[in-house]
């Protein structure tokens, strides 16, 4: 039972930390990307189409790092392999 408690505590704490730090970096990056794109559109409104498309693709690339962290968090909370291993014992 001891190791089960430990796995639960560590999993939940790590899940919180993962999503916290995992959203921190992409948020900064996305804010920077959007601000740069906005100033680029303000300078060259004719190129708005290209800039917007590149911006969306870039944002998705940046966001995927946050999504990785989210997936890891979900695995830790809902589908933790160590938890199921110790439950079965």
């Amino acid at each position, binding site marked *: 039972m001891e190791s089960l408690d430990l796995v639960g505590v560590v999993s939940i704490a790590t899940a919180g930390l993962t999503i916290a730090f995992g959203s921190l970096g992409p948020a900064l990056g996305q804010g920077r990307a959007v601000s740069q794109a906005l100033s680029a559109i303000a300078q060259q409104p004719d190129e708005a*189409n290209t800039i917007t*498309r590149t911006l*969306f*693709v870039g944002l*998705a690339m940046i966001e*995927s790092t946050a*999504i*990785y962290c*989210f*997936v890891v968090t979900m695995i830790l909370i809902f589908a933790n392999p160590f938890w199921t291993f110790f439950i079965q014992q």
Partner: protein
Amino acid sequence: MTINPDEIILFEWGWLKINATIFFTWLVMSLLTLGSHLVTRKLSRRGPPSRGQNLLEVLVQGIKDQIREVSRQEPGPYLPFVGTLFIFIAMSNVLAIVPGYIPPTSSLSTTAALAACVFIAVPVFGIAKRGILDYLKQYVQPTFFMLPFNIIGELSRTLALAVRLYGNMMSGAIIVAILLTITPLIFPVIMQALGLLTGLIQAYIFAILAMVYIASASKAQENLETRRRER
């Protein structure tokens, strides 16, 4: 709460188990096929086009324009593959507002299959355009030592493609489920509406990234030629 629609068994006949992912994938496929069949059955050249024909023409023309802008090539050979990816993912994401529907894209199996299609399509288009030797040569660009990194890059971008779509769609479903337990009145509706937007953007991004990968595999040749010409 389950985060994997593969584990929801809808029907079961002996050894045959139909889980939610398979069922809803086939539902989306049949909807798309049936809708396109009904529209394309009576296409008209003269006079005003019917509503359905108008919709499909706008859709196909839009996809063509996007492919042309992204790849700077004629969209002809790429249109069926990239267009199918976009329409299938967009449809399966947008249908998420129908109650009881589970988007097949919120299962890692579906997105991994789609990403595997892209993984195979990239060398197929590349070899068809440039020939096998010329295609393989790009793996040892700029030097031979980059070979492992090029291969790792190829694999990791396929993984990223699969996990990005899966994570976005799964997170939409999870967030709505969590909000239903906390603030069940209005907020889930807002998140659901936001989910529609994310779903469409993800479909667009998946198709565009597939196109970018294919274009990068089949275009390097032209760059070399133009460089030679400039010399």
